């Protein structure tokens, strides 16, 4: 059958190709991105919606908890411990100097080699602006109320506070005359200095009021006769409009004492109970104090205050209104969150943060300006190499020196120790891992077997076992090792463990370098050392950057295991804080969330660097060979 060709079956195109057009609007831009990626099918749309809803719900719940009920005091009251462990208090400047050196070098390197994304600088600026704004906002927010519990069979405590001229203060006695009164929840500062904190005692009252067969626990028996007196620092009763400032309550009655303070200075609120009628003065009462500032417990703040107003008056059975003795309980408003939870943290870190950012920015600028200078790059590499012994020297000190007295490594802790273990681990395990990987591929059987044995043994044993061996067993085998510092022994343990894993990762990289590369280099007359150093290793390492950095990240996280061996790095020190004091025990969640955030930020930074390394230089080009 003859084919029936039409005119279009034979064709010659126009001499010029047609002009390129823009793609249809729905396939590009953010709309196109949404369509392609989030709503490409019914299933995809459903997944998108469900994920979004879950994410928002989780974020909302977390935010609500962290702002309304979490107690971040465990973090901001222990910042020194968290950052540098039990490092000598007076020598903390050495840790700060170390941090400064590192920030400067990081800034310089980023200026020289990297670039700062707009997102990064935006985040830094927002945080900085936030930190500078918070003190302003915080000072506008009225201070939350302070609550006391007045109990029978126990003399009431006096309250010492710092007042300022013109402050309006109010003292309210609220007798507990009804079971319902016990169930109130108060949002404000509550006493927490004593062995069991206020909230626990208040809960005891709530749980037992009206139920226990104790006349004092029956609200209807309330019969306290209280007298409140406001004293000046000298101990004299404050005169107010020619009358002494006092509130005398008849038995079983509540009341309010309110006044405007005449002067700046220390005041004492004296709470007196009529002790004569011993069996009659039954019952609990809440004492609420408004308009009084809860003082910061920070050493520098205390010092400045003492210089200005003198040290607080000494009295028996009195507590000072400062954040060591009081803790915020109950549900907070946003304003209270800012003034009670954010402000103290910001106050403690704003100075180092600003110094750090300024230092970083300067170093970055220097790096940026010297980007073309080969010499500056070399100098900064040398500075990195030198910084390490210098930092160790600064931190450890010299025996007998008065400027840099020795700080034994056993008290190094917190983030400092975590970073130190990580840096030493990375710096030592990387070359060792390369040697092991090359050794395992060696043609010499002895080298090959030793490397293989080393790698397989270390990979076959849990890290914690290796750390315990480094601590307990190794000194048995070789006496000089028992003199070796525990911290150093942990560094060695972590290094060997990581090196074994790295060796396997690097070996994987070595295997994918084609034989042709080696042949080409050999044909050029290169020696096998040159070939390994210049041709094989650079390609092998680049190919396994993600695996290597992954190993470094797990080393960073695994440093937390040294806590089990008796070193207090970041996780260990938090454990110590939590288990070491009753005050902080209820707030483990906050502390662990805080260090989780620190761990995450550093890990994320490391994997971000790895991604940049991967795509830098020849990595940005898809290799065709």
């Amino acid at each position, binding site marked *: 059958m003859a084919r029936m060709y039409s005119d279009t079956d034979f064709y010659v195109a126009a001499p010029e190709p047609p002009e390129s057009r823009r793609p249809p609007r729905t396939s590009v831009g953010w709309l196109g991105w949404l369509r392609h990626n989030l709503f490409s099918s019914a299933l995809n749309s459903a997944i998108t919606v469900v994920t979004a809803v879950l994410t928002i719900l989780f974020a909302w719940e977390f935010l609500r908890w962290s702002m309304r009920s979490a107690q971040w005091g465990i973090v901001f009251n222990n910042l020194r411990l968290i950052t540098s462990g039990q490092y000598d208090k007076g020598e903390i400047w050495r840790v700060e100097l170390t941090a400064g050196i590192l920030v400067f070098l990081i800034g310089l390197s980023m200026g020289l080699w990297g670039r700062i994304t707009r997102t990064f600088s935006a985040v830094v600026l927002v945080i900085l602006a936030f930190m500078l704004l918070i003190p302003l906002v915080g000072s506008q927010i009225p201070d939350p109320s302070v609550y006391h519990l007045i109990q029978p069979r126990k003399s009431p405590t006096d309250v010492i506070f710092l007042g300022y001229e013109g402050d309006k203060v109010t003292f309210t006695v609220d007798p507990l005359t009804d079971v319902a009164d016990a169930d109130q929840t108060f949002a404000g500062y509550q006493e927490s200095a004593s062995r069991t904190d206020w909230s626990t005692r208040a809960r005891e009252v709530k749980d037992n009021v009206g139920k226990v067969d104790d006349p004092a626990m029956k609200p209807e028996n309330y019969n306290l006769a209280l007298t409140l007196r406001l004293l000046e620092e000298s101990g004299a009763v404050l005169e107010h409009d020619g009358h002494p400032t006092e509130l005398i309550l008849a038995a079983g009655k509540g009341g309010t004492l309110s006044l405007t303070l005449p002067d700046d200075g220390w005041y004492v609120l004296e709470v007196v109970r009529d002790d004569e009628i011993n069996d009659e003065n039954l019952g609990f009462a809440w004492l609420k104090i408004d308009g009084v500032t809860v003082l910061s417990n920070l050493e520098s703040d205390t010092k400045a205050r003492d210089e200005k107003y003198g040290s607080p008056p000494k009295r028996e059975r009195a507590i000072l209104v400062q954040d060591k003795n009081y803790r915020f309980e109950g549900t907070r408003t946003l304003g209270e969150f800012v003034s009670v939870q954010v402000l103290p943290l910001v106050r403690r870190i704003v100075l180092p943060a600003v110094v750090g950012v300024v230092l970083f920015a300067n170093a970055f600028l220097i790096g940026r300006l010297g980007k073309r200078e080969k010499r500056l790059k070399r100098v900064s590499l040398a500075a990195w190499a030198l910084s390490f012994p210098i930092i160790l020297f600064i931190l450890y000190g010299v025996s007998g020196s008065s400027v840099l007295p020795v700080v034994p490594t056993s008290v190094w802790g917190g983030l400092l120790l975590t970073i130190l273990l990580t840096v030493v681990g990375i710096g030592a395990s990387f070359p060792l891992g390369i040697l092991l990987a090359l050794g395992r591929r060696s043609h010499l059987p002895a080298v090959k077997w030793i490397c293989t044995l080393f790698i397989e043994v270390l990979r076959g044993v849990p890290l914690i076992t290796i750390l315990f061996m480094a601590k307990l067993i190794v000194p048995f085998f070789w006496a000089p090792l028992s003199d070796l510092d525990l911290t150093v022994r942990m560094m060695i343990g972590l290094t060997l463990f990581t090196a074994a894993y790295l060796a396997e990762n690097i070996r994987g990289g070595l295997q994918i370098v084609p034989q042709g590369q080696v042949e080409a280099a050999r*044909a*050029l007359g290169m020696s096998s050392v040159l070939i390994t150093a210049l041709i094989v290793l650079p*390609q092998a390492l680049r190919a396994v950057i993600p695996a290597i950095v992954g190993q470094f990240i797990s080393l960073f996280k695994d440093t937390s295991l040294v806590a089990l061996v008796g070193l207090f790095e970041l996780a260990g020190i938090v454990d110590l804080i939590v288990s070491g004091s009753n005050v902080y025990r209820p707030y483990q969640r906050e502390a662990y969330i805080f260090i989780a955030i620190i761990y995450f930020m550093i890990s994320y930074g490391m994997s971000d660097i790895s991604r940049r390394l991967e795509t830098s230089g020849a990595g940005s080009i898809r290799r065709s060979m």
Partner: protein
Amino acid sequence: MAENQEPIIVCREVHKWFGNFHVLKGIDLTVYPQEVVVIIGPSGSGKSTFIRCINRLEEHQEGQIVVDGIELSHDIRNIAAIRSEIGMVFQQFNLFPHLTVMQNVTLAPRYVRHQPRHVSEETAMQLLVRVGIPEQARKYPGQLSGGQQQRVAIARALAMQPKIMLFDEPTSALDPEMIKEVLDVMRELAESGMTMLVVSHEMGFAREVADRIVFFDEGRIVEMGTPEHFFENPQHERTKLFLSQIL
């Protein structure tokens, strides 16, 4: 060609085995300076293995290979000396993907010959001009076409100022449009007087440029002669069969 010159490559009774497989069965070949020898033959005939023996990428087990008066042996110094006199170009280019074109070309002169950086870069630039791609010096191999990559590979080999160039199927991995640019460079190189040993299937190139053509089959040299002899008057039955199938 000046037959009375001292030969630069002498191979006598070269044997090689891969395990039990006898790849080269007694190769005798003498190459003179400035000569272009094209080796052809079916795949598996041992022609690639043979030229890889000449710079010791493969080790022969019997016989003798003498390059520029130095005999190939286990002595590492001899091997290094010979390798620095022989340039080699591979079928798969084997450029170093992590280095720029410039770094690829200057690497060996800098680290093997210890040339100062500016000297090696100057030479490299001249070579890149010679192979026609000076503008690609800062790029990475992955950004170049196959033809450009192979020309870089030639420049890289020339940077060591070799006396002999070995080409192992230099155009087999290239698109038809790119074969010509590589052959042009090789033709120019041959005209400049380089001693060349070329394993190739490019019959046009062989006929035009070669001084002698060597036909390999089953690990031995079946026939060897001038292009005229080879293409117009082949003697051996195997040669005739091969030529009838590819022409």
